């Protein structure tokens, strides 16, 4: 069935298009109409059960040609295509199952899992939530929510669902324990995570993913010897597995043993059947080469990694979307209009936010680690709630318009306190996360590119400090290019689109600053490296916090920041992170003319 016949559906299901992706659901008869086919379906199930896949497939195709909505045949054919690695066919079939019967728990869970595997977390979450709605007592529904929300950087919500899954299961299932351990590691709860890994491994000693996850956790916690020992154990389970090698390379890189790290990556490359490394391996290789001073090779590896990513994911910068949003924000947020827009009232009780704004890779993680080393401040990390509020706004303000135009409904008698409601929604979501520890009066939100929504933030939190972290634009572009990021309308795959999105966002920041009275402070990453204490004092004073010398030792902050920056922020400040672009001037040449005005305006220059 490998070669597609021209009259069959492009998804690869083996069905004709009119029976597959071009099926008109209105033409389907009631399920009872195909009852005479049930014996064939039973046969297909039996054949599939005993491993007679070709027979099962033939029967399914036969049934579906006559009754394309026959659930049992769709389910068997889906399983066959999934096992064959025929992704598009499997997705089309399981989507049809869910579409035909939204209460099909198994199919809904399968679809959520498939989308999770593809990295489409947003849609995966939609179906996982449906799974919880229709099967609230099914542990797998909760396991899926746990997996998806952990990866979507809402680990606190994920933890809730993992624990619920364990409770419903009534037993300490080792994979579930390992999943929960990974979740807790992402919340920086290393001791708890370690205990769960130990428990999981004791029950199931040869699960590769468990060993790899634990090794990664120890690496994050800077116990490199233990990470190595776990990778040795993994090696015994799956000798030469590329994931083990990649983890090994990362550990070598973090112990600054760049030569060996690179040698491991090259080994993966040689062993890879398709030839060549994946996106993450290529970018890791580039970063190693960069640290070794082999800049041309490093850049080549970054470029190859980005090419690979485009090939696999097909993502491209959503330039029109970004430009449209920026234009609408600029049209809405003008001084003249804002004079008659009500503001939310200041937060009266409970912890208040400090917004750390900045383009990805500009030093926001370091600033968050610095501030959250203060006993009064908790780290909120990348909170998604500003985005959430932007999306929910039409509903919450009962407006027929989208954000930002929906803010026009604040002029209605029944919505004039709408911003207070949006603010309370945000605060309630923060409370739910449970990130605020006793004694803390502030929490940080360092969602990159939140500066895009600085206007909305200032309306909801008129007294919240907005700390905007600046860094040399060429360093930002280079660093975004050398890391895998999806922020910023998928701008990260090419230098030019990174630069374009950077300029778009900075132009918006300028606009907000011209049109609004903001509690805004710009801090240069380079200045913090240069004179840490002065600038830490400056930020704390701006956020109305007394100086605390623990903030100067932020690298000892045990909190684990989940983003790509964590390896840097657990190291002390060092000078090599500044002006790295100087080694890449010729590679960056295509974007320098675009960025030059911004570079000059921020007080930077381009030096060789």
């Amino acid at each position, binding site marked *: 069935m490998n070669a597609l016949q021209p009259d069959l559906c492009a998804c690869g299901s083996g069905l004709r298009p009119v029976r597959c992706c071009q099926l008109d659901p209105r033409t389907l008869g009631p399920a009872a109409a195909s009852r005479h086919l049930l014996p064939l379906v039973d046969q297909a199930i039996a054949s599939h059960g005993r491993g007679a896949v070709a027979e099962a497939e033939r029967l399914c195709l036969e049934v579906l040609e006559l009754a394309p909505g026959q659930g049992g045949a769709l389910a068997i054919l889906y399983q066959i295509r999934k096992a064959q690695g025929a992704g598009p066919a499997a997705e089309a079939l399981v989507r049809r199952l869910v579409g035909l019967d939204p209460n099909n728990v198994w199919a809904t869970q399968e679809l959520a899992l498939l989308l999770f595997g593809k990295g489409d977390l947003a849609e995966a979450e939609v179906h996982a939530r449906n799974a919880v709605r229709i099967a609230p007592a099914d542990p797998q529904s909760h396991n899926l929510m746990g997996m998806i929300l952990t990866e979507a950087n809402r680990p606190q919500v994920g933890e809730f669902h993992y624990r619920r899954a364990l409770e419903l299961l009534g037993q300490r299932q080792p994979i579930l324990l390992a999943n929960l351990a990974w979740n807790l590691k992402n919340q920086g709860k290393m001791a708890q995570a370690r205990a769960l890994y130990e428990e999981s491994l004791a029950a199931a000693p040869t699960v590769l993913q468990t060993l790899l996850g634990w090794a990664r956790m120890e690496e994050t916690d800077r116990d490199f010897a233990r990470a190595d020992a776990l990778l040795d154990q993994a090696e015994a389970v799956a000798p030469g597995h590329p994931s083990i090698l990649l983890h090994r390379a990362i550990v070598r890189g973090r112990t600054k043993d760049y030569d060996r790290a690179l040698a491991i990556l090259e080994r993966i490359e040689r062993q890879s059947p398709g030839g060549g490394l994946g996106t993450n391996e290529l970018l890791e290789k580039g970063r190693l080469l960069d640290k070794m001073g082999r800049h041309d090779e490093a850049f080549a590896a970054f470029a190859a990694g980005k090419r690979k990513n485009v090939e696999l994911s097909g993502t491209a910068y959503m330039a029109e979307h970004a430009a449209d949003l920026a234009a609408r924000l600029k049209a809405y947020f003008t*001084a003249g209009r*804002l*004079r008659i827009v009500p503001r939310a009232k*200041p937060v009266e009780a409970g912890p208040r936010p400090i917004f750390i704004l900045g383009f990805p890779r500009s030093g926001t993680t370091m600033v968050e680690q610095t501030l959250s080393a203060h006993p009064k401040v908790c780290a909120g990390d990348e909170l998604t709630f500003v985005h959430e509020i932007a999306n929910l706004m039409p509903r919450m303000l009962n407006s027929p318009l989208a954000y930002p135009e929906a803010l026009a409904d604040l002029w209605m008698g029944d919505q004039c306190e709408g911003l207070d409601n949006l603010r309370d929604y945000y605060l309630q979501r923060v409370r739910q996360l449970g990130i605020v520890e006793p004694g803390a009066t502030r929490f940080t939100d360092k969602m990159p590119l939140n500066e895009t929504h600085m206007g909305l933030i200032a309306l909801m939190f*008129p*007294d919240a*400090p907005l700390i905007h972290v*600046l860094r040399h634009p060429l360093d930002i572009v280079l660093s975004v290019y050398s890391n895998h990021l999806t922020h910023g309308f998928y701008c990260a795959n090419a230098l030019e689109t990174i630069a374009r999105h950077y300029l778009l966002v900075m132009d918006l*920041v*300028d*606009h907000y*600053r*011209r*049109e*609004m*009275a*903001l*509690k*805004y*402070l*710009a801090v*240069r990453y380079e200045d913090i490296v240069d004179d840490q204490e002065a600038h830490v004092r*400056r930020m704390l*004073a*701006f*956020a*109305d916090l007394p100086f605390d010398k623990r903030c100067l030792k932020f690298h000892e902050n045990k909190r684990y920041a989940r983003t790509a920056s964590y390896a840097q922020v657990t190291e002390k400040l060092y000078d090599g992170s500044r002006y790295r672009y100087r080694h890449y001037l010729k590679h960056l040449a295509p974007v320098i003319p675009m960025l030059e005005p911004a570079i000059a*305006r*921020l*007080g930077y220059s381009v030096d060789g």
Partner: protein
Amino acid sequence: MASAGQANPGLSRTVDEWQAEADAHEQAGRLEEAEQILAQILAAMPDYAPALHQAALLSHRRKRPAEALARLERAIRAAPDQPIFHRNICELYRGQSQLDAAVAHGRRAVELAPDDAGANYNLGVIHYDRMEIDAAIAYARRALALDPAMAPAHFELAEALLLDGQFAEGWREYEWRFSLPNSARLLPHADKPQWDGAPMPGGTLLLIGDQGFGDTIQFCRYIPQVARLCPNLIMACSSEMQPIVLQQGGITGYFDRWEHVPAFDAYCPLSGLPRLFGTDLGSIPAPVPYVRAEPAKVARWRARLAELVPGGFRAVGLAWAGRPTHGNDFNRSMSLQALAPLGRLERTALVSLQIGPAMAQVAEYYGPAPLINLGAEIADFTDTMAILEVLDHVVAVDTSIVHLAGAMGRPVCVLLPFAPDWRWLRDRGDSPWYPSLELFRQPASAAWAEPVARVAERLSGLIQGGRAAD
């Protein structure tokens, strides 16, 4: 100039005709067309002085000062003794704050044409800009001797005398301001007499807010005195000034449109009151505060500033540019960038009160102290007054904010150009008009660095003093 017969041998027009056509284009506002013709003439005859002169004036109109100067310098090299060239280049150099070159050419123009009132007047203006006030007065008087009705020279003389503290003669000469070529007409109908300062117990007196906001704020202090002489006192002034002017007791009607002004028996421009009341350097009335903010607005802005200014920070207001259409704006205004030293003040929030096009500069500020663009939320002077009441200090160039804060008795560091407006007098760091102001003057034209540094030092001293007292 025999060879100057034709700009282009292929065409049969004379250079004069071409120049005339260029002039016609320029008069009609078709500057590009004029430039094309003049550029062609100059390509054919690069040293032809009349064309160079005409081209220089065109460059000036096209806002290309360097090109204008270069063309006029070439014209002068070609024809060194043309007084009009020197007179004009002197004005161009003045516009570029190149006062040494300006004064040299101004002198040369007077040497070449000693009986040209205009040349003498120009030289007087440059001497004012150079703060050579005695010379400014002398040349203005010479211009007036040659042309006694030359209003700009009277006005120039007034400014120099007032700046020098010679108020009596200064106020008399200042009356010529309404005869200046570009001055707006004071009244739509001038069939009523100007008030002479005598009591008018029965008749109605119309006061007219005739100058800018700053002047209105400065001179409305005289209103209670006027009301004692003329109980039927009405005022015509812009609506923006109403909440300030009406705080001065005694006005029975306020009108911001001529067609609403009722019948009156005499009128008086507000800026004529110091003359009528014989104000001298020693007798300036300063009943400060004579302007107050509304308590409700103060409460609102106090709450707003409490949101925006970090706890324990001083709030220092800033205004660095005036209305760009003001004739002297290039001289009195500065860029926010020039205030950078204030950004280094400890535990200080800078609160921009700037409005208008200069407000956009806020986005280019990345200094250490937070800068709050409060101008974006200011709707009118009642807001500004309330904010001034709440701020700890203000730093501003010569704009209406300075007058408002001064009238309210609020502390302001005023940054003044080397040759300031007459009301700031000379050689003093205080203002008898407004006791709460401190004046910081440029040591030379366009030299803001020194006074800004002194203001920063002053504020840093205040902050440290303030902290010690806490």
